């Protein structure tokens, strides 16, 4: 009995059978060679800066001397009212921007999935907003939002809405960024969802129709469940992207975070600490680590929740 157990343990310790094969090692070696260039590039431009940011967050940085200061950068940002305000605004932006964009993208994708006239033109039009450089798009929106001459206020005037100082009033600054972001990303997300919609087997719809399901029921009970892989993908990338919003704000408010810093999000805060004249790279790195932690936790949470609800055909 004991001898048998020892033998079984020995077998468990011994290397797998395929390790003894030469071809296995040749194939493995070839595979590693293939990924080596990408790994080397990623190491230099992604992995090293990533770990370096962690290290930097515990240092007081100046061009000549960098001294280890433990958690003091974290202490500073956690006591800084502008950090908490930036964090709150980031959540506000994400909380409103992500669900609305996704909902509108679903609607647009469903419409584009119908047999409409000029469908190709409509699809291209929606996607154009995404492929146009963000700076160019933002500068156009700057004019749209102009409180005296902007088209938005002109159209709102038809409905009796008085002039809104979109970019000069702290109440409207962040909503202005959100509206622009929704417009920009709806088309992109819709195209991904459209691809998912077109991949759903027609037989499910036929079966639902035979069972007498209404249009809304089909959408809720067939389309949405079978579209969950794409919805999940879009949700994750949209969430991560929204947490990192910066360029739109920087351009829309001419290099400032809006009136009274009303559009200062977390990435803007990081940029301000590290690069806009103050050069507190340690604090900027600490805030970056916090942002990474938030995105990481949210992504894990989403993975947990959505894995239970994602249906693959």
């Amino acid at each position, binding site marked *: 009995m004991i001898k048998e157990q020892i033998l079984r343990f020995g077998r468990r310790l011994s290397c797998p059978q395929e390790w003894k094969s030469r071809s296995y090692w040749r194939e493995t070696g070839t595979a590693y060679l293939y990924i080596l260039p990408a790994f080397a590039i990623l190491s230099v431009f992604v992995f090293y800066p990533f770990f370096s940011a962690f290290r930097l967050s515990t240092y007081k940085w*100046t*061009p*000549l001397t960098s001294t280890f200061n433990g958690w003091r950068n974290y202490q500073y940002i956690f006591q800084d009212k502008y950090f908490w305000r930036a964090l709150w605004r980031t959540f506000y932006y994400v909380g409103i921007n992500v669900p609305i964009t996704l909902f509108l993208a679903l609607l647009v994708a469903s419409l584009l999935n119908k047999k409409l006239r000029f469908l190709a033109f409509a699809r291209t039009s929606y996607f154009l907003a995404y492929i146009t450089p963000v700076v160019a798009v933002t500068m156009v929106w700057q004019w749209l939002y102009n409180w*005296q*001459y902007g088209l938005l206020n002109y159209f709102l005037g038809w409905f009796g809405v008085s*002039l809104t100082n979109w*970019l*000069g009033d*702290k109440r409207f600054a962040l909503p202005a960024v959100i509206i622009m972001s929704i417009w920009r990303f709806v088309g992109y997300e819709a195209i991904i969802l459209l691809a998912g919609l077109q991949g759903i087997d027609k037989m499910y719809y036929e079966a639902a129709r035979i069972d007498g399901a209404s249009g809304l029921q089909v959408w809720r009970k067939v389309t949405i469940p079978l579209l969950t892989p794409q919805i999940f993908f879009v949700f994750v990338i949209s969430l991560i992207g929204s947490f990192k919003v910066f360029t739109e704000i920087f351009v829309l*408010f*001419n*290099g*400032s975070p*809006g*009136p*009274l*810093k009303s559009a200062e999000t977390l990435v803007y805060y990081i940029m*301000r600490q590290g*690069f*806009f*004249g*103050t*050069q507190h790279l340690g604090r900027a790195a600490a805030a970056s680590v916090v942002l990474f932690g938030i995105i990481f936790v949210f992504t894990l949470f989403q993975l947990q929740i959505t894995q239970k609800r994602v249906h693959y055909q």
Partner: protein
Amino acid sequence: MRSTRFCVLGLMVVFLFGLVAVAEGPVTITFWHAMSSRHQPNLQKLVDDFMAEYPNVTVELSYQGGYGDLQQKINAAVVAGNPPTIAQVYENWVTPIVDILYPVGLHMTEEEKGDIIDGLVRSNTYNGVLTTVPFNKSIMVLYYRKDLVPIPPTDWQEYLDMSKELTVDSDGDGTIDQFGTGFRPAANPELFLNFLEETGGSILSEDWSKVTINNSKGLQAMEYAASLAPYSLITSEYMSNAFQANQVCMFIDTSAGYYYNNQAAEAAGCEMGVARVPMGPVNQKSMIQGTNLAVFDKNQTQAQKDAGVLLARFLLRAENTVYWAEKGGYQPVTKSAYESEEWENWVATHEYQQAMSAQMLDGFSQILHPNYGDMRYVIATAFEEVMLAEATPLEGLASAALEIEDLLE
């Protein structure tokens, strides 16, 4: 014995000739700058003139992008141990890296040093040594529309009265269509600093040990700014946009913006005038802005450092600083330049230069405190809150003073 002496003498002669040969041998230096395309031909011309005078020196001009990019690249190069020979720098960029700079002032004659405008000597002196030298300098002036402001305001009260008078809601819809003046408080807190200087106030005490921004002088400056707020367009955009759209009648801005402001005025179909900043309760000083030139000690040969100093001194010569000012819209930085016939003729034939030129000799610059960047941010925040009526002058200054206090540690 005699032969030994001859040998030593001979060796010394050879050594000295050798040194001269090194000094006169070909040397290449790099000059990092942030001068955009409008200024590059002028800078290139000056550098070409320098190389013609010193044929053994080659200057490689290297555009590094805007000022923010330049600062980041200088810092990165310093960390990498490979800075340029010479670069444009703001005062507060220098403070953290002053130990690796080659003090230009130590290699200038007393006459050359004494020729630099006094205010600029102070703002280029670190630890008692003239370390950098002024280069592209501009000064705060008042821009105004000549059709609406026939005679520009000369003091604070006139500026306030005229701003009030010129603020109108022309179509009666309850929205002001034309503001007397305008501010960019978040982007340009230097306007408040200018008011502060004119009250005789300061951010910190002389020895930087106490915060003085919230004393009676600071309060006087902020209250004055707040009194202008109802008649001011508060924006984050460059004021030239509002000027072009006929939204503001006059505003205080740096002289470096003359070209753009004048273009805006022309596009709006009106003539622009330039005047001195209105006189404050104590003085009529105006803030000088712009960069200086630093020569780096690190990773440079002695010949490169010498060549860098030569270039800095060359650019300070009256004829060169005048050329740079005439072509680029900056202000000369030496006293002899202001006394030169060339500059006097230029000012006589360019009306707008009179106000700019008149203010330079007693202008003031930013303080050299290492945390000036943070202080500026704090002041901008308070200034914006006050101008947008989110805080009273007293509240704004009290909160700014508290935050600046932390920056003194």
